[in-house]
């Protein structure tokens, strides 16, 4: 992967639109950043390389939202959680296709690169969600 591609949150979402879950590895100290950032918070290095990471993981915790901001109200109730990926990195997101009462901590989930359109004008990023593996 070219290092000319900026190591930014926006670029993370651009990769998602291509169906790739990408993290940035610091070349100096080896720390893997998800989301990527322009400077390593561990060693202050700025030399990164992109690496594709597994979208599979297990659910660390969850909640089902009943009172939502305006743009998400049509989805209520919806479940969100934090997933620990196979490499130890973590991502939060919606859990779809599973009834709230069936969601359990520790269940195996995987990233899916499409989700609801909530009619947002900015930022117009690709969304992701988590589904059963």
């Amino acid at each position: 992967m070219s290092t000319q591609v900026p190591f930014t949150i926006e670029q993370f979402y651009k990769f998602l639109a291509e169906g790739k879950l990408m993290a940035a590895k610091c070349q100096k100290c080896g720390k893997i950043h998800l989301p990527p950032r322009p400077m390593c918070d561990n060693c202050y290095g700025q030399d990164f390389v992109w690496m594709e990471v597994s979208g599979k993981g297990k659910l660390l915790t969850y909640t089902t939202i009943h009172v939502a901001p305006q743009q998400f109200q049509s989805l209520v109730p919806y479940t969100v959680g934090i997933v620990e990926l196979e490499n130890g990195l973590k991502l939060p997101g919606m859990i779809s296709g599973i009834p709230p009462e069936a969601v359990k901590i520790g269940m195996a989930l995987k990233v899916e690169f499409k989700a609801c359109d909530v009619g947002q004008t900015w930022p117009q990023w690709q969304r992701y969600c988590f589904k059963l593996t």
Partner: protein
Amino acid sequence: MGNQGLNGKPLVSIVSAGLSKFGKHEGLYARELFSYAAKEAFDRCPKLEPKRDVKAMFIGHMGEAYEHQGHTGSAVADWAGLLGVAATRTEAACASSGAALRSGIFAVLSGLADVVIVGGVEKMTHRSTSEVTEYLAMASDYPFEQFHGITFPGLFALMATAHMNAYGTTQEQMAKVAVKNHHNASLNPKAHLQKEITVDKVMESKMVAWPFKMYDCSLITDGASCVVLAKPELAAKYTDQPVHIVGSGQASDTIGLYERKSLTSLQATKTAAKTAYDMAAVSPAQVQVAEVHDCFTYAELMAYEDLGFCPVGESGALIDSGETCLGGRLPVNTSGGLKAKGHPVGATGTAQVYEIYLQLTGQAEKRQVKDAKLGLTHNVGGSGATATVHLYRSDA
């Protein structure tokens, strides 16, 4: 951080404090609301000449969105009769006035100002629940939390679910926090909700973000708080009953909950508490009364553990024991807390100071903790990306 070498020496002294009634104030702007808190603080301290003595103000205010109004520091100073004073708004989400207090301490300790006002204000009730939910969520990580529909109650619910899973904490134990704090608020004439509730009422209330029901959540409230700080050597000039701040800690953490090592505790609270305890040379067991950040019922249980009031995983047992109720070993949130007194976000940190000031000067009336001499406040911003912890001592 370690011991700061101060060993309980006062950093600053509180010589007065004021609080607006918390609740729904239709037709009042934030700056107008603050003037009520300032008026009470001025009236309590007749020897203070505000225009002469006050050299700086730090005002906690979280959001422009509520009133389309930023630049709150100067507006509040003007409406408090202090036009011309160096006034600055501080923002750290729901810890905005905890941060204002820290700024005030910095100002006095530096020697740049002998007397400063710290306080906070938020006007929220004129907005819809949906709007307030969105504005509060702005204190979380936008690209990964808000963007995926995660709300503020949702973030604390994620922590509560993890704690239930790890330690067997129950929804009923969380509900007991609400019952206790509503009872305390029923004794506080300035509280937003002055009514008792039961565990059943909590359990039957409308779901907000599982496992949190409506009665697990703090209130959308209008309110303002004001505290007058003075250099300790000058405190006697203003009052016979100064309350000394003897420990001050503040820490930060990742803005996104998902990046934290622990989902059941707040590292920022633990770090801030260690700094404050070391500075004051006291242990958690010595604290006699505490106002902790109970934005949601689980947040109070988490605070018990992070502040060292009980071992990790045993906060459910602590609320069951009744030790944190009025009359118990360590009464917590005697004011009614954010849960029932109300949570006008920018005002909350110094509203906690107001309650401890009343307690340590023997002015808490029906809520008075007998012979309280050492108090603690704990103010959290966002889902724990900021925390401030302060310790207070009265010598009377």
